[in-house]
């Protein structure tokens, strides 16, 4: 597995880059926070990922870009939308996932994934910032808490305050009003998290509730966001180890799949249909046609380590 593939997710507030090898294993990844979509931020993310992998751009066998700024990524042989890439990357990280909820800086998405790991349906928030990472930033600023500490604060509060507005601008005004009423900051934070979870539930309703559920995007690192979403959905919400890079990971896998032009169904359900392979190019030892289940030594190979 000598190929090296780069996936770049140039989002609204962060740039993510992932390098994978021919087996789809992550060799390196990077997440760079930007003020807004920027070429410089994207280049830093790419440089960092390549450096960590010990590669240069000339070593790459394929690049796919995604995200708001996907067209700004030089060298990308192809672009895909975040929908396709998040589904692809998440299905690889969490096999069996049926519902991906991705909450990014400027938008949130609900994506249903088929048993084969491919997109079935999706819905995105409308143009306002409700339920997105930006909304949490507004909350953090209003209650004067670092964004990293917002989740822990919210988990300490009760959830009995009424937050009626889901417009980020009006919600800020509402939060200021609650502070002026001397409401507990933790209660305010928890109530806003609850309201955002309810908003996300409405997004999920457009594609239908499915389980298992996986939350991705930067907001997935907020434990209160996970808690309240899980409560709203009445389902376990799984967060992958690296929730921010699922889109870039999916993009890297799509670059790999396109380059291989061979059977990838064994490790990525459905990818063969997406990028049909040429006949007769299956990896050696994986094609069962004409095989009676025995290996070269004539013993039955169950694919498990032999006990000694």
């Amino acid at each position, binding site marked *: 597995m000598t190929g090296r593939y780069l996936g770049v997710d140039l989002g609204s507030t962060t740039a993510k880059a992932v390098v994978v090898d021919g087996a789809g294993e992550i060799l390196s990844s990077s997440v760079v926070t930007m003020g807004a979509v920027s070429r410089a931020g994207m280049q830093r993310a790419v440089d960092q990922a390549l450096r960590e992998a010990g590669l240069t751009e000339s070593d790459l066998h394929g690049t796919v870009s995604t995200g708001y700024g996907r067209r700004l990524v030089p060298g990308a042989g192809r672009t895909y939308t975040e929908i396709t890439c998040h589904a692809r990357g998440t299905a690889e990280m969490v096999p069996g996932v049926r519902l991906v909820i991705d909450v990014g800086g400027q938008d949130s998405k609900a994506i249903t994934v088929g048993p084969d790991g491919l*997109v079935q349906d999706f819905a995105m928030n409308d143009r306002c910032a409700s339920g997105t990472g930006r909304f949490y930033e507004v909350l953090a600023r209003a209650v004067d808490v670092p964004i990293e500490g917002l989740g822990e604060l919210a988990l300490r509060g009760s959830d009995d305050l009424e937050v009626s507005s889901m417009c980020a601008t009006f919600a800020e005004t509402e939060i200021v009003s609650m502070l002026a009423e001397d409401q507990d900051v933790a209660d305010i934070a928890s109530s806003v998290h609850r309201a955002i979870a309810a908003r996300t539930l409405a997004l999920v309703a457009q594609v239908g509730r499915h389980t298992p559920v996986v939350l991705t995007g930067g907001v997935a690192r907020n434990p209160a966001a996970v808690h309240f979403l899980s409560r709203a959905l009445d389902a376990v919400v799984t967060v992958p180890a690296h929730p921010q890079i699922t889109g870039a990971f999916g993009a890297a896998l799509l670059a790999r799949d396109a380059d291989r032009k061979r059977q990838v169904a064994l490790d990525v359900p459905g990818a063969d249909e997406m990028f049909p392979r040429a006949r007769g190019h299956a990896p050696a030892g994986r094609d069962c046609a004409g095989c009676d289940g025995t290996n070269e030594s004539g013993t039955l190979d169950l694919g498990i380590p032999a006990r000694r």
Partner: protein
Amino acid sequence: MTTTAPTAPTAEPRTERLAITREGGRMIADYWEDLFVARESGRKIVWYNGGALNPMFQAAGLAWCHGEAFAARLAAQRLEGPAQLAGAEYGYNAELCSYSRTHLGCAVLTLKGSEEPDSGVVGLHDRADLAAKLPAPDLFVNNYAGCSTGQQWDEVSYRVFGKNVPIFNVSHPFLWGNRPDAGYLVGSEWDEASRYVRDQLVELIDFLEVQTGRPFDYDALSESMTYIKRAGELRREGLDLCKATPAPATFWDWISCIAPINFLPGNQALVDYFQNVKDEIQQRIDAGISGVRDEKYRLYFDGIMNWNKLGFLSRKFAEHGAAVLAGRYIQNAFWQEPHLIDTSDPLLGMAQHYLLCPTNHGSKTLDHLTLRDCESYGIDGIVFHSTRTCRAFTGPQRLLARSARDNLGIPSIFFEGDVADASFYKEEILDSRLVAMLEAIDVARERGDHRRAGRGAEVAWPA
């Protein structure tokens, strides 16, 4: 580095718009120029909104101004700003229907004239020229179905003109479609509503006779409706020709044909125009010319037109090989059931068309019509224009999306925009959703399960 197929839009336009629509544009321009000088030529002027009452006005010898049509014209020319600013100054904010906001602004400007440069915005005074050009009304007639704003709009215009201009309102029952015998164009609800509106048209004629001071010319109405019926038939035949694969013309061509069928006089020129439209489409089929070069996807567009973006949207979809072919706004509006019109006694058929406004149906009927058109045009996906200030149109859209998915396996996307306010549109929102849907269609095609063919619509109507 491996290079895979690029998805970046090609530089060369892939649209092949119908040439004849330019002739339609000239007819429309002439119509407006004639309206602007109607008072000088001795005609009274009626402002109206909603269903196409123009044959009544034609027979009554009036000049007519359709409010939405003028707002759409301003938006199409990106000249809506001054009128909307005037409307906002009068007290109508951006949450109000942008058609009505624009037209109310026109009313304000008509009263004030364009001579008062009361804005500091550079160039605004010059751009207000067209918006201020409408001749003041001698009477109002409201004919709005399925939209309460439409009725309030003329009532407000009446107040803008100091309550000194006579007004007549035609009231339309909402077609719920929930009686046991209900169906599209059939059932007791349909019959009762048709007669109810028809009777009001008789009263409208009385009103027009009083306002004009002369007897209504029924023969002129029959003559006008004969031409309109024929134009409607030709339009339908042309629409049906677009079911061919690849499609010879697109939704955007038919959008360009809305103005002629909606408010131009019923006469031979109108019939000739739609005959020419149909002929050009047939010629394209014969010559193998498609509306979108290398058509790859066939889409349905639900929502009123985003008039600021007509050319832009036609190119955007075509760049991806997406032929938009059908939509509630063209298939299910504008004299779309010409067989209902009895030219010797056209009032009932006219009333029925006013009831058939696409915002005046219950969800069951809309579902029936949408699934029917998706099936007959071989639609791969639906694009819902979530028209920000038109709740009447957007209300049932989620239900329609779910039904298309469940019954036909057709995916949908939503994007926000508006009929006459470009500020609600954001390109990235449409772009990311559209491309994601097309990617999903590609995957489904590869997987071999795109459109669960044969399931068909599950909405059954009485025969």
